[in-house]
Every structure is written in C-alpha cells, then in structure tokens.
C-alpha cells in the first residue's frame, strides 16, 4: 500500500489537472473521494487552501471578494483587474459588515477598500 500523501502533493496534483483543462468539478470529486477513502475529510478546508496556493503559483488566482451588495458585471471586471494572474476567479460573498466598498483576499495579499476599514483606521488614530 502506498504511503500517506502529503497535502502539498495532493494540491499540486489537483492544480495540475485544473490547469491542464480538466473540469474543476471532476477534480474536486476525485479529491473528495480520496479524502473519504483515506479518512482525511477533516483536512478538506486546509487542502482547498493548499490547492489555491498552488494554483496561485501557477498563475491561476482565486480571489475572495466580499461586498455589502452583489457586484455588477462591470465592477466584477474591474475588481478582477486588481488581481495579477493569467486566470482570475472571483469567489464572491455578501458581507454587510463591510458597510460598503470591496474586500479582495488572494493568497498572500489583501486589498481592503471597505468603509469598515476606513472606520477602523479612524479609530486607530485615537491617542
């Protein structure tokens, strides 16, 4: 029986397949099957992040975008341009606590253009 695979190896394998043109859904199904079989489902979250990191290294960026209201298509394009990468995917979420503006999270980087951050910066100016 083969030894236990590291998360990094699994992530590289998955990223290579995605970049190679295999449907993401197919890749994720295979990975999920492996995790269930190997009884490593608790590592799902960590593995997803690892895959994202590997994809980012290969120029495929998955950016988490948080806004108070859904993005329009034009704004989505504009936000996508903020991220450097061959291929950029935006994983959008609605978060009213940002109050307004946009928060973009990518592996190793964050762009915070929200009103919440501006208020936090204002509070940080307290003496």
């Amino acid at each position, binding site marked *: 029986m083969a030894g236990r695979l590291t998360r990094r190896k699994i992530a590289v394998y998955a990223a290579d397949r995605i970049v190679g043109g295999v449907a993401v859904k197919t890749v994720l199904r295979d990975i999920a099957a492996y995790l269930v079989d190997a009884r490593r489902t608790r590592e799902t979250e960590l593995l997803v992040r690892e895959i994202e990191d590997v994809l980012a290294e290969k120029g495929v960026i998955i950016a988490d975008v948080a806004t108070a209201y859904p993005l329009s298509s034009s*704004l989505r394009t*504009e936000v996508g*341009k903020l991220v450097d990468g061959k291929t950029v995917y935006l994983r959008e979420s609605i978060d009213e606590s940002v109050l307004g503006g946009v928060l973009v999270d990518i592996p190793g980087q964050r762009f915070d253009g929200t*009103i919440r951050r501006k208020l936090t910066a204002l509070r940080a*100016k*307290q003496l």
Partner: protein
Amino acid sequence: MKEILTNFGSAEAAAQEKDFFGALGIDWQLLVIQTVAFLVLLWFLAKFVYPPLTRMLEKRDEAIEAGVKAAGEAEKKAVEAQEETAKLLKKARKEASDIVAIAKDEAAAMAASADAKAKERAERLVADAHSQVEKDVVAARKMLHNETIELVAMATEKVVGKAVNAKVDSDIIASAVKDAR
C-alpha cells in the same frame, strides 16, 4: 571696814585733843598705813593687774587695728569687687547686647531663609499646579479627541449602514478600485 571706821573714830577723838594735824583730822598712823596699803595696792596692781590689762588692751588695740586694717582691706576689696562687678556687669551687658544682636541677626537670617523657602515652596506648588493643570488639559483633550473619533466612527457606521445602497456601494467600489491602481 569695821577697822577703818574704828580708826576713823579714834582719829576724830584724837583730833579733839591737841595737835594741829589732829585739828585737821589727819592721823599719822592711819596715813602711813593707808600709804603703805596704797603702795602695796599699787605694787599689786602694777605686778599682777596692769600687765595683763595692758596686754589685753594692746591686744585689743591690735585687734582693733587689725580690724580697721581688715575693714580697710575689705572696703578696698569691696571697692575692687564693686569695680570688678561693674566691669563684669559692663562686660555681661556688652555680651548680652552682642548675644541679642547676634540672636537678632540669626532670627532675621532665619526669617529670611524661611521666607525664601516658603516663597520657593509656593512657587514650586504653583509650578506643580500649572503642570498638573496642563497635564489634565492634555488628558482631557486626548479623551475628547478619542471620544470624538469614536462618536464620529459610530455615527458614520450608523449613517453609512442606512445610507449606502447598491448604487452608492458601486460608486464606492469603483472609487476604491480606481484608487488602488
């Protein structure tokens, strides 16, 4: 005494008899006896009474003279003592005067020192009070600043939460993206 009276009576009786001395009341025998008795008495006094008496008187004179001398010396000493006392008194007065003057000077110096210390203390207290007031003012300003910021942040949060809609949010996002480039 009885014998003398008897002799005197005999002499008187003899005087009435014949001789001149008898007429004058002089009895030769009695005179001789009296003379002898007188001489004996004189000898006795000169031999046994006068010398000690004289010595006593001399001693008394010496004592008196010594007393006078002593009194003179005492008077002299008293005068000297008086003079000495006067000198001492004068010296003591001078010393007392000096002491009083020194005490006055020292009291004045102490008063001046106490005055200076009190003044310095008062100035220090005032300076401390000013410093404390300044610190309090700075602290109050800081607190006011912080509270103002907090209030502004809270008010902004409340107002923005209600004022922002999809359109406004799109404008904010566009502005943020533009600033980020």
